[in-house]
């Protein structure tokens, strides 16, 4: 469980462990894998997500512009239609009053009975007409039909009276009056027979106007109402009712035509406002028709869609990011591992190169020594020959012994240079029949002196009848030398080294090199064949000996295993085929 979690975290946040502790740093192609990884993710993320983000936001921008245009258009159309209805409503009533005033004339209208009849007719025709009054040119109401007794009331100071006198007709703002029912006054001026003017005035309840406005409303997000030119509500507003009697948005400047604009109200809500100044064909009115649409409502469908798009975008971005991170981590990790392998190979190659040059040096030295040795040999031989010819010397065994000791010493030197040259050639590949016992003895010769000094007993148990192995001499020599070296380093003075060989089946030979030294702990045992693993002090060991040995054994198509107990000793066992398998490289 924890391991899989660990692996998952590793695939998200790789560690790029360089277990070699900087040994291989000079061989790596990239030094900072964390940075490479970061750059890879950044570039992939940018190329994958940036176009997506830009496209999404461009789309949002275009969409919003088109929605704004569309909503401006729709709001303006609605305002235009409503304006026509309101204008018609007022014009109709003004026309009816005009008609009544002309048709009946002042004399008839001044008669309360006839006036009441006219009121009845108007009520029948339009409804919502509360009362009717006739006002003389001095402002005094001469006749009145309606629920109040307003005869004789002086209107000369009323604004609507003055406006009507000036313009021939008027429509007042809304006011509540005595009954606390909102209404407006509509009045027309007419001329009497004597040339003087009189005004026919009607009070109209605004309820019908409000109903007319309401009928144009569509949806919850639309508000249609009238204000006067100071911004005071003339009909109730759905959005701004109760807040104040003042308009919550700035009063627009005068325009003949219906206008639409985008704005925000005082609550900070984005709105689309369309307005129209209501002017009848007879007289201008104090009303401004306002159509307010809340953008939130109009854009609801779009906003819902945008939320969906955002979700989709977010989830896609997260998936893309995860895929990019996983892919980058995987790829960079692969590169890292390949690079590490390369670095290890290069380090090994360099090590081998060094070994090879040491070998070449040894070969050169051996060759140079061989020529003078040959001269000593021949000269001593010749002098010995000369002495042996003469009888007096021939009888002297001591003299002959001296010459023989010179020749023997030369032969020993020759054996050593021969071995050195044999080692130098371990980089060539030759398959040849090898007598394992001779080969091991050769190698042990190198350690003879050390074993004597350190009182190390070497038990060599290789049967004479062991079959010859067809293999590479140099490589096998190095394998044995490495393992014997290793054992010598692991054991204390006075310990012993056991070398045994036997056949393993019919086609293999097993060679075991064991010591009774300090042994290897269990956790180290797993790593002994890994390159650069060493328990020796820094600078003392390359950590390559056993890994090279392992590589060499594998090259010879053999197998190497190790058994060890701390405190009891270690045994390396090599199994080699007697006949070469395939081609060795």
């Amino acid at each position, binding site marked *: 469980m924890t391991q899989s979690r660990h692996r998952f975290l590793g695939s998200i946040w790789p560690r790029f462990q360089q277990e070699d502790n900087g040994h291989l740093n000079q061989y790596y192609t990239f030094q900072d894998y964390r940075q490479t990884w970061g750059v890879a993710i950044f570039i992939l993320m940018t190329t994958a997500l940036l176009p997506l983000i830009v496209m999404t936001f461009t789309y949002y921008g275009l969409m919003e512009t088109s929605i704004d245009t569309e909503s401006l258009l729709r709001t303006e159309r609605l305002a235009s239609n409503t304006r026509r209805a309101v204008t018609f409503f007022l014009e109709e009533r003004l026309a009816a009053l005009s008609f009544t005033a002309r048709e009946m004339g002042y004399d008839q209208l001044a008669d309360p009975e006839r006036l009441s009849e006219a009121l009845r007719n108007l009520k029948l025709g339009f409804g919502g007409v509360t009362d009717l009054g006739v006002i003389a040119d001095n402002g005094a109401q001469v006749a009145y039909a309606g629920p109040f007794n307003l005869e004789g009331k002086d209107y000369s100071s009323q604004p609507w009276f003055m406006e009507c006198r000036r313009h021939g007709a008027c429509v007042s703002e809304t006011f509540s009056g005595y009954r606390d029912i909102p209404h407006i006054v509509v009045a027309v001026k007419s001329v009497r027979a004597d040339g003087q003017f009189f005004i026919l005035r009607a009070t109209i309840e605004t309820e019908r106007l409000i109903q007319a406005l309401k009928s144009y409303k569509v949806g919850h997000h639309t508000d249609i109402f009238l204000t006067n030119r100071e911004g005071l509500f003339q009909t109730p507003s759905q959005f701004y009712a109760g807040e104040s009697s003042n308009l919550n948005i700035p009063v627009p400047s005068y325009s003949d035509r219906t206008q639409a604009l985008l704005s925000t109200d005082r609550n900070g809500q984005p709105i689309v406002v369309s307005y129209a100044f209501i002017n009848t064909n007879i007289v201008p009115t104090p009303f401004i028709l306002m159509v307010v649409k809340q953008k939130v409502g109009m854009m609801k469908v779009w906003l819902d869609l945008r939320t969906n798009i955002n979700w989709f975008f977010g989830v896609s971005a997260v998936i893309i990011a995860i895929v990019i991170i996983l892919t980058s981590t995987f790829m960079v990790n692969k590169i890292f591992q390949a690079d590490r392998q390369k670095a290890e190979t290069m380090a090994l190659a360099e090590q081998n190169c060094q070994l090879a040059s040491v070998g070449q040096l040894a070969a050169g030295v051996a060759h140079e020594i061989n020529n003078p040795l040959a*001269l000593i040999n021949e*000269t001593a031989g010749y002098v010995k020959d000369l002495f042996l010819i003469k009888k007096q010397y021939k009888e002297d065994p001591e003299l002959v012994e001296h010459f023989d000791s010179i020749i023997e010493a*030369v*032969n020993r030197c020759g054996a050593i240079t021969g071995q050195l040259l044999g080692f130098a050639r371990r980089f060539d590949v030759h398959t040849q029949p090898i007598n394992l016992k001779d080969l091991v003895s050769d190698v042990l010769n190198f350690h003879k002196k050390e074993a004597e000094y350190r009182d190390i007993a070497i038990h060599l148990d290789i049967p004479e009848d062991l079959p010859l192995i067809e293999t590479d001499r140099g490589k096998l020599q190095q394998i044995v030398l490495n393992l014997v070296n290793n054992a010598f380093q692991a054991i204390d003075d006075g310990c012993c080294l056991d070398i045994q060989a036997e056949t393993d089946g019919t086609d293999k030979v097993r060679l075991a090199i064991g010591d009774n030294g300090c042994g290897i702990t269990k956790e180290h045992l797993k790593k002994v064949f890994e390159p650069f693993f060493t328990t020796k002090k820094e600078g003392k060991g390359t950590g390559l000996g056993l890994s090279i040995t392992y590589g060499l054994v594998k090259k010879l198509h053999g197998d190497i295993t190790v058994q060890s107990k701390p405190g009891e000793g270690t045994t390396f066992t090599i199994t080699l085929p007697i006949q070469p398998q395939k081609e060795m490289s």
Partner: protein
Amino acid sequence: MKVLLVDDEEKFVRMLARRLDLRGIQAECVYTGAEALSLVEKGEHFDVAVLDVKMPGLGGIDLRRKMGEIDPQMKFVFVTGHGSDIDYKIGANEAAFYLPKPLNIDELIKALGKVTGVSPEDTDSQH
């Protein structure tokens, strides 16, 4: 038996010639491959040539081929300071015998005998 010794180590060859002489084998010394080749070209006959593998100029291997072309009867023994006994055996296509330096005189004589088919005892009249 007439032997030609070719080696760039002059003292070594001279000593060897004297020792062979003591054993009744007539040996002529030359110190370069070119010298040896010119001797053979002049028409002088040797039963065996003992050649050093590595010499400045004409080396033992090339020399053997050239001399073999001129005098097909001639036999060859190689001697070299470069390498161990077993290494010579690996590439022993060029000559019947490879001997490592330092030489064992008895082995050389044995080898000479073997390549020429003459028993060393037959020539050992002076000894």
